[in-house]
């Protein structure tokens, strides 16, 4: 059972960018069910390589790219767009507990809330003196270069 076949059976449009790299655009509500079907059907072969948060202020979204590596096969990149003033999405740590560091970093440095993950805390990477609510990786937080 290949990962691309599982995704196409679920009705997701899969685009091949180059060998071993596939990109899919996924709506926000369906992400958790897609990830848990992938983990269930390809048992023991899927892990979360990274969750990349990209701030796009001119479109008014924060885009999250869930990069999942399927052992022996390919990298599947699920793209989700969240509204910039209320970025919230369901956590995937109930099916993939190893995704906790990625969600911690996205929460701490970009401000994305993961519903259902109660171990997120702030500040985790930022220094403790930084007031909570400042997100350095957003484009409106300017780097003070003297």
């Amino acid at each position, binding site marked *: 059972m290949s990962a691309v076949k599982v995704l196409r059976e679920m009705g997701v449009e899969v685009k091949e960018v180059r060998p071993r790299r596939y990109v899919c655009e996924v709506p926000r509500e369906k992400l958790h069910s897609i990830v848990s079907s992938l983990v269930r059907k390809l048992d*023991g072969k899927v*892990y979360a390589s990274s969750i*990349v948060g990209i701030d796009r202020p001119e479109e008014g979204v924060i885009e999250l790219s869930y990069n999942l590596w399927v*052992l022996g096969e390919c990298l599947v990149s699920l793209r989700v767009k969240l509204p910039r003033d209320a970025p919230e999405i369901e956590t995937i740590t109930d099916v993939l507990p*190893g995704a*906790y560091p990625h969600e911690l970093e996205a929460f701490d440095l970009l401000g994305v809330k993961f519903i259902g993950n109660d171990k997120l805390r702030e500040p985790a*990477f930022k*220094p403790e003196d930084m007031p909570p609510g400042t997100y350095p990786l957003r484009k409106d937080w300017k780097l003070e270069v003297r």
Partner: protein
Amino acid sequence: MSYIEIPVGPQHPALHEPILLRVKVDGEQVVEVEPVVGYNHRGIEKLCEVNSFIRDLYICGRVCGICNIVHATCYAQAIEEIMGREVPPRAAYLRVLVNELERIHSHMLILAVMAEIVGFESLFMLMMRDRERVMMLKELVTGNRVLADYIIFGGVKRDVTPEKAEKIKRELDYVEQRMKYYKSVFEEDYALRRRLEDTGRISAGDAVKYCFVGPVARGSGVKTDVRKEDPYAAYDEVPFELITFREGDSWARMMVRVEETFQSIAMIRYVLDHLPQGEIAPKAIPRKLPPGEAIARAEAPRGELTYHIVSNGKPMPYRVKIRTPSFLNIINSPVLFENAQIADVPVIFASLDPCISCMDRVLVVDVRKGKAKVFSMKQLSRGELRW
């Protein structure tokens, strides 16, 4: 029921870099471990957004001192994929050569550090003496022992002459003979086996679910290696074996690293015997970055390293995301500490090969004024940090 919480770190003789492990104990038995990170955070991802992509090559090469060649290789690969450039064959083989030299010295370092943590200082000193030969080889090929600055977009900077190739092979013969002796020490010595065996066990299915990468996953029997599954830079032409062990404890993880050292020595010999002719780099560095996106993966000595770069056509990249292997291995480590004793905590932690500099990325805070400021590399080197 109330437990005693023991803070291990951020300054501790068992750990080499600053990290805080909050260990909750009930007598000698460990109940829970929580890592608290962020002491070495340097703000590199934000720094890469305000500098041009050519400067970022040298910034990203300084994320970690031990695996700096792998960071530069992975970054250069992502930029080359956005530009649509190929690397000439001789340069691809030379990139394999320096990446494997990096792997040998990094594995010898963590084997020596593990010996020091269990108290076996003679083994630590002997391994560091033999590791000096590999550092000298790095200086021969790249010009410096630690920060190599060897990779450039489209190739490598220096060539390897036949005399240098002979010297590399002679030194590697000596290193291989010493590594055979150290392998027999790790397999037969009574004290080492008692300390390392049966600590931090994890099964193969759990290792994938908890997203462990590198020798930590291969020590539990998971067949994963970026060089085999997703080959880059001539790894599809150089033959080697994927090393896995079944036991899943700290001893198996260290033995994976011992066997990988032998594989690396064999790979370097193959590269030196089969170096193709040709140029090693383009005449002029490409100076325009077209819009696009790329995800590059490389196998660092500690596991899978990925760079996700997004570009919108300007010379400064729009987003550079670095996900290092220690990021996953360290923050997901609490699952390994079940049923451990206090004395096993440094052993299990060192068997993950933690590289804290790789994991954090710095912010400098002015505590008096209550403000936080990120300092660029230019300012830090100009000495503008005044207390």
